[in-house]
């Protein structure tokens, strides 16, 4: 039995009882709650900690505080309207949620989206990855005492969010990727806007690395902290930057390419230490790789339609509604009743900023999903916290949570 399995079993075998059972024999132990309203738990994560002095003996994540039954709600929506719910799951990476759900529906519909839609989706997703990693950078720095990292991370994210707003009309929860393509074409001036961002980011990333990478306090608090071995990472289902920091050379974008990832070249950063610092290095380099990817996508952006022009599933263009009664009827039917999807099921996985984001969609042939399940990387990665935190200090736990980069909206759904 691996170390991970042992720890999980020890924790789960008796549940919370494990924390009380040995209490009388161990007078020096203390059981405390961390969260769910704690600035370092990144949302409403609650941890039950058993401490001996400052050493974490056991750490059990208790989740569910943000559960809103999104999977159930999707069953009540049309295929297209479910996007609005899906995008709110992992709220820092909304494009990924929309993309993976749309891909699953497209697989059921057996349609291929036009190349331009693929490129737009990939570009938005990669910019979103940078934005999401910038939040991680800010919070990781803040939790380690580097307040300026928070300001800088959010400053650059603002630039990206402005671009998202320019394209989609919303800063978050865009609902931009839809089954069959994207909702609207890129607006005028998008290329200049992206190029400005691409010009800005590498220099700023240099600044960030200058701030933290060699900072002795930061190194002290991250190197060798929260180690996760490759075997444990595999056993715990850990994916994404966490897995790559533990030496698992796997990236769905490169190894099972989807959307436009087959057309671009990029490196997948790998570290083998598996500690918080390795995760820091992986994410910092991932942002640079994303910049490279977006550059190639902008250069190679194809023309043509940006969504499937199938009148059965796409409402007519807005302009037609002004003079055609048929178009109004058509629009009304698509919006209110939606379209049907052939019976079947599909599981599609993409590489979100936090790991393998999977959408499992079942259709019964109706106009709304029969079952929609998201494999959210935050949820699965959360289990590794117990393994990483054991034996460390409470202060290390803060660093570990930050390096885990959990989004509670995705964990609880």
């Amino acid at each position, binding site marked *: 039995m691996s170390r991970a399995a042992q720890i999980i*079993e020890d924790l789960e075998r008796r549940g919370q009882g494990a924390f009380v059972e040995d209490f009388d024999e161990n007078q020096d132990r203390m059981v405390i709650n961390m*969260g769910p309203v704690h600035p370092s738990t990144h*949302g409403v994560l*609650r941890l039950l900690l058993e401490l001996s002095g400052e050493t974490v003996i056991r750490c059990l994540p208790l989740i569910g505080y943000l559960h809103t039954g999104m999977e*159930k709600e999707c069953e009540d929506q049309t295929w297209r309207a479910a996007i609005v719910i899906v995008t709110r799951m992992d709220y820092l990476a909304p494009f990924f949620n929309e993309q993976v759900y749309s891909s699953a529906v497209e*697989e059921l519909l057996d349609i291929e989206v036009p190349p331009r839609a693929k490129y737009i989706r990939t570009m938005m997703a990669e910019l979103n990855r940078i934005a999401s990693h910038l939040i991680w950078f800010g919070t990781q720095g803040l939790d380690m005492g580097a307040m300026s990292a928070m300001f800088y991370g959010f400053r650059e994210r603002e630039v990206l969010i402005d671009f998202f707003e320019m394209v989609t009309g919303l800063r978050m929860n865009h609902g931009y990727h839809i089954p069959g393509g994207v909702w609207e074409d890129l607006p005028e001036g998008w290329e200049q806007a992206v190029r400005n961002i691409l010009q800005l980011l590498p220099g700023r990333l240099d600044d960030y690395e200058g701030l933290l990478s060699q900072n002795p306090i930061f190194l002290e608090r991250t190197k060798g902290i929260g180690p996760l071995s490759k075997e444990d990472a595999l056993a715990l289902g850990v994916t994404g930057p966490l897995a790559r920091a533990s030496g698992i050379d796997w990236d769905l974008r490169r190894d099972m390419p989807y959307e436009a990832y087959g057309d671009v070249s990029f490196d997948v950063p790998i570290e083998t230490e598996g500690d918080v610092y390795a995760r820091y290095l992986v994410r910092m380099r991932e942002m640079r790789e994303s910049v490279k990817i977006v550059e190639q996508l902008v250069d190679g952006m194809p023309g043509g339609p940006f969504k499937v022009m199938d009148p059965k599933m796409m409402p007519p263009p807005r302009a037609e509604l002004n003079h055609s009664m048929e178009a109004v009827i058509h629009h009304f039917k698509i919006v209110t009743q939606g379209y049907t999807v052939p019976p079947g099921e599909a599981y599609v*996985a993409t590489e979100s900023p936090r790991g393998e984001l*999977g959408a499992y969609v079942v259709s019964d042939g109706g106009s709304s999903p029969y079952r929609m399940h998201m494999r959210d990387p935050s949820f699965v990665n959360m*289990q590794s916290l117990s393994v990483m935190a054991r034996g460390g200090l409470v202060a290390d736990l803060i660093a570990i949570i930050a390096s885990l980069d959990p989004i509670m909206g995705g964990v609880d759904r």
Partner: protein
Amino acid sequence: MDAGAWPELVQSLTTEGWWLADLCGVDRSNLVNTGQGQAAEAGVAGEQPEANNARPESGPEDPTTPEAADTPAGPESADVSGSDEAPADEGRFEVVAQFLHRDRRERATVHVLAHGEPPRVPSIAELWPSADFMEREAFDLMGIVFDGHPNLSRIMLPDGWEGHPLRKDYGVGKVPIEFIPQPFLQFDSPHQQPNSPEAGVSVDRLGQPAGEPGRSAGGLSHFDDTKIDSEPDPSEGPS
């Protein structure tokens, strides 16, 4: 496939190099009754169209395991799915597991039928620690009982919740949204009397946890001895 052979199948898959990606429950009641479920099942059992991953889908089953040999033969019936053999009324619940083979770059789906009420499936949490949370989620939301799971308790919903929301007979909006002001701290169980015999340990000795949330979701404070029951705070914001 049948639930009984599920752990052995997982064992053989694991030794073959498959990695457990996902596990969730599906309530197929409406699918089976309409007959569309069968069609869906048949479509699923074969290879999935690879619009996304551009890799051939192949079945995970080890030919040496008997249950894999029992499934209807055919080159494309790769998926281990037994619902076509089972009577319709027994095929209501299903555990769907996704596997990934990193070296072969293939994905595979395994359907495990859960029989009875509550539906039961053997747990694979011992083989895959990652299945721990996933099984708890399937139990919580779908009501599938995983035999042998070390701690099968609700994970998303409060402990005292009735019903399993993802079941098809549990309507959307069944539970009205209520905003009832609650006392900041409320101890309402006999176990929570300090120094009571069944509690085993007193609230004081545990130390009233610093940061213990008076505003936490009711019942989600699993800690038996210091159960705190109050309404969830809708204003809990993102990180």
